[in-house]
């Protein structure tokens, strides 16, 4: 697998989109922290940008990249290479490059300007978020052979996770405001990796005090060490499940 990974890595590193993505993330992070005196405010702005861009770039770039690697995959399959290894190497290569771009672009300024604990949390969770959307991209691109459909599907999923899901939760919140639905909302938030990430960071920023009773419930559940472990396990599941399903499908695919 290392041998296959080498060629995937060389190919991605030459890709201009990854370099542009790194530079844009870096430009934004540095400017946010230079403009705000208050590091916490800077983190909030940065958080919102990261929650929109990181999933979008990870899922779109990966989906397009996998479709463009069709020839590469076909070429390798006729040689003595296990299918498992080809797919895993592609996944590792894409994940590593997305994580590297995130850490160089957003991680370094975070470490310099933000509180160390929060910086580490944001770097870990953001890296996981990148990998999660790479995994979802793998699922999208194996479901359909048609490139346009696959890219469409990945954009829809991004829209759903980044925008629609919040809307749905808010809608539920207002509809059932008279009932004690805080626990249900906590459970629902596990269904979206982006929301999990947001809650984790907000709680560490001490702005949860302004989130009312729900904030208190969140603090109670996610604020503890167990909560942290629990949410990172959930995030890890978000990587493992889509990827393993796609791997299974790839092993049975006719090329």
């Amino acid at each position, binding site marked *: 697998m290392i*041998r296959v990974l080498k060629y995937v890595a060389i*190919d991605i590193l030459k890709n201009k989109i990854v370099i542009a993505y790194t530079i844009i993330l870096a430009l934004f992070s540095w400017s946010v922290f230079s403009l705000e005196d208050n590091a916490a405010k800077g983190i909030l702005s940065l958080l919102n940008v990261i929650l929109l861009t990181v999933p979008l770039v990870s899922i779109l770039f990966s989906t397009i990249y996998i479709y463009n690697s069709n020839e590469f995959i076909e*070429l390798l*399959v*006729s*040689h003595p290479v296990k*299918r498992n290894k080809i797919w895993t190497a592609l996944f590792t290569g894409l994940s590593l490059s997305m994580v590297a771009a995130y850490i160089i672009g957003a991680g370094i300024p975070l470490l310099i300007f933000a509180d160390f604990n929060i910086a580490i949390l944001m770097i870990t969770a953001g890296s996981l978020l990148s990998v999660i959307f790479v995994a979802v991209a793998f699922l999208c691109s194996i479901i359909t052979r048609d490139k346009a459909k696959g890219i469409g599907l990945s954009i829809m999923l991004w829209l759903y996770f980044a925008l629609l899901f919040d809307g749905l939760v808010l809608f539920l919140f207002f509809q059932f405001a008279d009932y004690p639905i805080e626990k249900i909302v906590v459970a629902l938030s596990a269904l979206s990796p982006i929301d999990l990430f947001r809650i984790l960071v907000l709680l560490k920023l001490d702005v949860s005090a302004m989130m009312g009773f729900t904030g208190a419930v969140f603090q109670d559940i996610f604020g503890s060490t167990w909560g942290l472990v629990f949410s990172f396990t959930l995030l890890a599941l978000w990587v493992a499940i889509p990827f393993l399903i796609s791997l299974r499908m790839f092993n049975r695919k*006719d090329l």
Partner: protein
Amino acid sequence: MIEIKKLTKSFGKLKALNNVNLNLAQGECIALIGPNGCGKTTLIKSILGMVLPENGDIIFNGKNIKNDNLYRNEIGYMPQIGRYPENMTIGQIINMIQGIRNQQRDLDVELYNSFGIAKMLDKKMHALSGGTTQKVSATLAFMFPSKVLILDEPTAGLDPIASEILKDKIIEARKKGILVLITSHLLSELENIASQIIFMEDGNLILHKNVEELKSDTGQSSIAKSIIHILKNKVA
């Protein structure tokens, strides 16, 4: 060498392979012929593990190829339409395949030399003509020591000189005791190469015979005429 038992594969409603049984012996040069869409490429891709059949087994050198990939070390494959990563150069592709096969020594560079690949190493794959892509495919197929060569329409798109070079190479490979499986629509091209003929139609195996046997059975002097003879008799 390769034993195919009750191989069945369908794409949706289309039966690409219907209960095909074959025994391909070492040292033969087997021509796989039949009309478009008769299942030739599906059969080849099944042997290579690119297409996964619903039913049946393929035994390669005594071992079932299901869940195995090392047997592909013994196969040189030239696809009908070579598809390569577009922004890689010829040199990078050759290096990559050598790296993946983990084989830098004992390489057969005869086609590499006679096709003049060395002069084109820096060319990107997307800038190549169809014929040059075929030359790269052929070079890669013959480069590694193998027991089986699978050539899907090898001479399509090649210029006459290259096509002659390739044909000589195929004959030479057969003399070395390599099993050569070749598909072609140009029956005249197979005349001096093939030792056995497999004829397929709509996913069914119609015949598998030695060339000499085929000629004497039909009373014809060439492969092309014998096949036409069989087809005409079937219609009548």
